[in-house]
């Protein structure tokens, strides 16, 4: 009979063990806010379908302080999402050579973040132009 008795440690509370894990969990938790924001928009859409009065009610609701606080948090979370999204981007791409040199992770992240800034500005300008 073998004397082996390998000891398996518990995973309880693993996300608290390392700051890296806390950052990872923060990234994942952003999803909750993305969902909430999408639900707010979905409500607006449904209200829009129900007619002017209903839609205006939704618009009024957006003006409450609670919703302001909510949207400020959501804005911060979205910015974190953008940052973390492009931060892991290099991990999701095959090795790319440009002019014989390997594309560096920093370049990829930087390009992504720049693209996001451009896209956001474009949205802002288009919406301003439409109104």
């Amino acid at each position: 009979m073998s004397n082996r008795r390998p000891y398996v440690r518990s995973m309880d509370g693993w996300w608290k063990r390392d700051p890296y894990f806390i950052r990872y969990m923060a990234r994942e938790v952003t999803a909750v806010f993305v969902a909430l924001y999408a639900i707010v928009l979905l409500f607006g859409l449904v209200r829009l379908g129900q007619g002017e009065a209903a839609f205006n009610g939704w618009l009024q609701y957006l003006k409450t302080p609670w919703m302001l606080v909510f949207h400020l948090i959501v804005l911060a979370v979205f910015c974190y999402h953008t940052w973390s999204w492009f931060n892991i981007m290099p991990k999701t791409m095959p090795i790319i050579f440009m002019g014989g040199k390997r594309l560096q992770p920093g370049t990829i992240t930087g390009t992504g973040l720049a693209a996001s800034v451009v896209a956001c500005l474009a949205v802002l300008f288009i919406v301003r132009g439409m109104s």
Partner: protein
Amino acid sequence: MAENEKIIEIEVLRYRPEQDKEPVLQTYKVPFTDDMSVLQGLQYIKDYLDGTVSFRWSCRMAICGSCGMMIDGKPKLSCKTFLRDYYPGGLRVEALAHLPIERDLVVDATDFVTKLESIKPYIIPKEPRALEQGEYLQTPQQRDMYEQFSSCINCMLCYAACPQYGLNPKFTGPGILALMHRYNADSRDGGQAERNELGYADEGYWGCTAVGYCSEVCPKGVDPANAINQNKMNSAINYFTRFVTPGGAGK
């Protein structure tokens, strides 16, 4: 050297299956000099304080992959982690996380090695070539496509870093998937379809949630997170196009 010898406290997580119900901490006071690694600290303990402490080591130069352990909670190679960096506070060493403890600082590596064997980690030639024909041609750039993934020393630090492996040991895990990618990305190899049967399964690339800590702790810059996540796109494309591309259906 005696005058600048300092004393550091090393806490070691002990587990002796024949006597301990569960792991316990034991503290040792170790004299050290600034060029001493954590491994040398443990060797001092074994040689002069307590012969019963068990741990693996060999090369002392961060290439054999034996000496991985948790040092103050982080997966590291003890031969290239230095005591001076923990002075005067002291440090705690434990067996690599997420793996069963065989004894003291020794983990059971069976799962890792079994997985290594399961991924066909050898060239499945794209075109057979006889020895008399000489070597396959491979440009430095083609070599660069897999070289980094071939420098894995099988130290398992990434397994101790990956919570997805800790939560679900069926997940093939970072190091081995990186090795799989190493062969898939080799210009001489044509075995991608065979290997990706595993790669495209839940236990393969899809077990990874892109935590990324594996790449952070890897002492050899292998970047397993990249090896895995760059394949998710291939896997997805293959998933949607398998019925329209010839030979893409697989099993």
